[in-house]
């Protein structure tokens, strides 16, 4: 018997196949491998049977505090939103899960039509002209958008608004540092000349959760002949004006919040949308509608001459995935919640966050810093943030993100529809008590 439960060949199959090939043993097939390095020792962890695997990984999963938590206010780019049963049911279908990239459209209409639905719903959500079938994650989508602007404007200077988070910048930096791209902080637009910069990057809601006047910024940068790129949080678009109404040229987002589990940081999906005149510079996969020989409506990968398998070193990017399975989750999610559901979730996030923030602001030793925020806000505290967070955690509450800098004790709370009013009130009463600790 074999060790692997996933290999069907029996010993007699193997003997028969080797005989057909015309060799006596498997080793005879490996004549090209240097003898001195053939069959090295392989010392891996011991093999586990299926029930042992379940036990072992159960044990590991319980080493994460997550398992016991009552509620969590952690955000900073990934958010705890409800994932409907419909999403979980659909991604378990092997016909989606175990299919290959749809290079053979006749055998992949399911994947392709889902991808077309994804592009349709994301363009509607953003109100942008076009979008691709998906990028790795939000930060890489933004980095690719910035490189796209450099190609469109033939100018490698990028302006960064102070709303953009450090993580986003770090990813942009590793995507651009060997391509002679210059990244400059946005300060005074009036001192700029026309064509000085390819684009301005803005994050709204900002890294501190604030809603930025993107329209004003896009008017300013357009006067200097640059493009405006907005990175956004899709759930906020149930309440806040979408990029398409703000004269944004390229808009990106982290798709995690719309139907994707936190899963310790991935897999997520990057959303990348733009005005239609920039489509030839859009990286990644794009799905288009067409007809078959009999005139039947059907779908296929299209505009592939932008991509690496054809253009090689002149491609728009090296990416060759669309993170399709996560695109399926996003599509089922948006179709499940619909326009009313999105509005309701978005408003619930907003109102619960504002209630929580204003109540914290009333407690001695806590001060609300953020203005005009969506569902994430910054609090300055007298006490050390680690102390506060450990105290809440000892009561099974995962607190916000510690973003203290220098002598300032800062904490950023994110509130979603998963933080119910009872949990919020309980957290508030703990925070009120913290001064007595």
């Amino acid at each position: 018997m074999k060790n692997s439960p996933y290999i069907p060949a029996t010993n007699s199959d193997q003997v028969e196949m080797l005989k057909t090939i015309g060799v006596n043993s498997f080793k005879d097939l490996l004549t090209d491998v240097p003898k001195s390095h053939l069959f090295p020792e392989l010392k891996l962890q011991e093999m586990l049977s299926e029930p042992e695997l379940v036990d072992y990984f159960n044990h590991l999963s319980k080493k994460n505090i997550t398992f016991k938590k009552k509620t969590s206010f952690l955000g900073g780019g990934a958010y705890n939103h409800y994932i409907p049963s419909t999403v979980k049911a659909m991604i378990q279908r092997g016909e989606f899960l175990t299919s290959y990239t749809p290079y053979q459209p006749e055998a992949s209409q399911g994947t392709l039509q889902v991808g077309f639905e994804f592009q349709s719903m994301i363009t509607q959500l953003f109100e942008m002209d076009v979008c691709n079938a998906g990028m790795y994650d939000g930060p890489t989508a933004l980095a690719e958008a910035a490189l796209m602007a450099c190609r469109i404007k033939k100018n490698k200077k990028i302006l960064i608004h102070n709303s953009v988070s450090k993580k986003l910048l770090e990813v942009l930096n590793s995507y651009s540092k060997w391509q002679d791209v210059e990244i400059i902080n946005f300060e005074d637009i009036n001192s700029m000349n026309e064509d000085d910069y390819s684009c301005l990057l803005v994050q709204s809601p900002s890294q501190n959760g604030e809603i930025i006047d993107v329209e004003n910024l896009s008017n300013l940068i357009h006067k200097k002949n640059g493009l405006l790129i907005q990175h956004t949080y899709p759930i906020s678009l149930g309440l806040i004006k979408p990029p398409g109404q703000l004269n944004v040229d390229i808009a990106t987002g982290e798709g995690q919040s719309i139907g994707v589990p936190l899963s310790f940081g991935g897999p997520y999906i990057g959303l990348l949308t733009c005005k239609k005149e920039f489509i030839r510079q859009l990286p990644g996969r794009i799905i288009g509608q067409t007809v078959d020989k009999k005139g039947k409506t059907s779908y296929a990968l299209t505009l592939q001459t932008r991509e690496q398998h054809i253009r090689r070193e002149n491609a728009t990017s090296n990416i060759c995935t669309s993170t399709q399975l996560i695109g399926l989750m996003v599509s089922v999610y948006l179709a499940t919640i619909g326009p009313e559901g999105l509005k309701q979730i978005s408003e619930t996030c907003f109102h619960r966050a504002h209630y929580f923030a204003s109540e914290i602001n009333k407690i001695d030793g806590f001060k609300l810093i953020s203005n005009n925020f969506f569902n994430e806000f910054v609090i300055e505290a007298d006490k050390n943030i680690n102390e506060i967070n450990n105290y809440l955690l000892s009561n099974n509450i995962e607190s916000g993100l510690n973003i203290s800098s220098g002598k300032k004790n800062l904490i950023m709370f994110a509130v979603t529809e998963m933080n119910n009013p009872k949990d919020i009130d309980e957290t508030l009463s703990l925070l009120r008590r913290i001064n007595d600790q």
Partner: protein
Amino acid sequence: MINKHLPLLMDQSQKGRKSINLPEIGVEKSTLPNKKFLRESIQLPEVSQLDLIRYFTNLSSLNFSIDTNFYPLGSCTMKYNPKINEQISTFEGFSSSHPNQTDENVQGCLEVMYNLQNELAEITGLKSVSLAPLAGAQGEYAGLLIAREYHKFNGNNHKNIALIPDSAHGTNPASAAMAGLNAVTIKTTSEGDIDIEDLKEKVSKDTAVLMLTLPSTLGLFEPNILEITKIVHDHGGLVYADGANLNALLGIAKFGDLGIDICHSNLHKTFSTPHGGGGPGAGPVMVTKNLERFLPYPHVKKENESFISYTPENTIGRLNGFLGSFGILLRAYTYIRSLGSGGLKEISENAIINANYIQEKLKSHYKLTSTRYCMHETVLSASRQKENGIKALDIAKKLLDEGFHAPTMYFPLIVDEALMIEPTESESKETIDSFIDCMIMISELSSKNPEEITNAPINLPVQRLDEALAARNPILSWKKD
């Protein structure tokens, strides 16, 4: 199979339908932002839950998938994706872990990452691992950035040339361009081996890195590998191996033993994580110990029985928002633990035997690119069939009609009418035999009744598509009629 086009969700949408009940706001409402920030309306589908489930379920039935069909798809390693991997990835302690939690609260996740780093190091013989890259192409890019930072660290900024064989995957030159390297093409022989004389001519003091695929994209082990890595090292360059074909090497040979400095591995190929119709994958990068300081964030280490994620001192930086595609890493680690050293060795052994068996059985029907024994895949050419007007593409479409996914076609570019076949270890002899019979039937049909091939497919939900129309007049999202 469903024969009519399923209407898009927006065409099914009716105002007043919904699929889910959501919680009420439940707190006192606050003042909304200024009106100029507020959205007035959103257009998304409104459908009932049953219609939604039926729609997506019916769509799924239009697909080929590993769970339903054999994919002899070269360079893609379409092996079985075990169900236990999926089950474990949904354990709540993993799926609801937040990536911004502090290390001490996510010891379980970090232990998974630490152990997987060690297993991949042992498998490839390259001792330092970062699991950050989100796909093979990103792993490749990370590998090249590591080479660049290494040369910069040693004061060799002039090293800006990537040597790339003409048989390489398209991502290789595309990644090199992103890393600001100038790609110089190295010739390969008709069997896809690196042309040593051409390499000697083109290697120079400016060589940053040689990118090679091992086994090669023709499915053959590079017989001169030790000489090749020595030539590049003698010029101060590094050797990067594209690990796309790692399924041929488990327990057979280690990259680190062969003079390779950097490699990536596609977990969705060798380590059985699902392709998902085109992602998400994961592409960890493995390097020699002396390159560890350049790895991307995060690297996980163990100190006093706790696991810590940290940024190596001369890091190439951050490649994504958080710590990598954890859900995929978890599936791959589950797979490795379900096999151990013994099971892992069987994978390559059976993958190689299956590929050679197909090669042997088909060699009198299709032209072989090489008469050597292949590794885990074999590249055939449809050049004989082309004399009857049958192209690789036509053969692919006829295979679809018979229930087999098409092989990889027209790649590598150096082979005329290439059909690249990779059976993997997952398929039974019976399935492989029926595929072989089908390939022989198609070859015979190509001289007797070529129209039957050029008309294919006729048994699938759609026939051949007008792909030119899709590109000429792009319709990329739903529009109201």
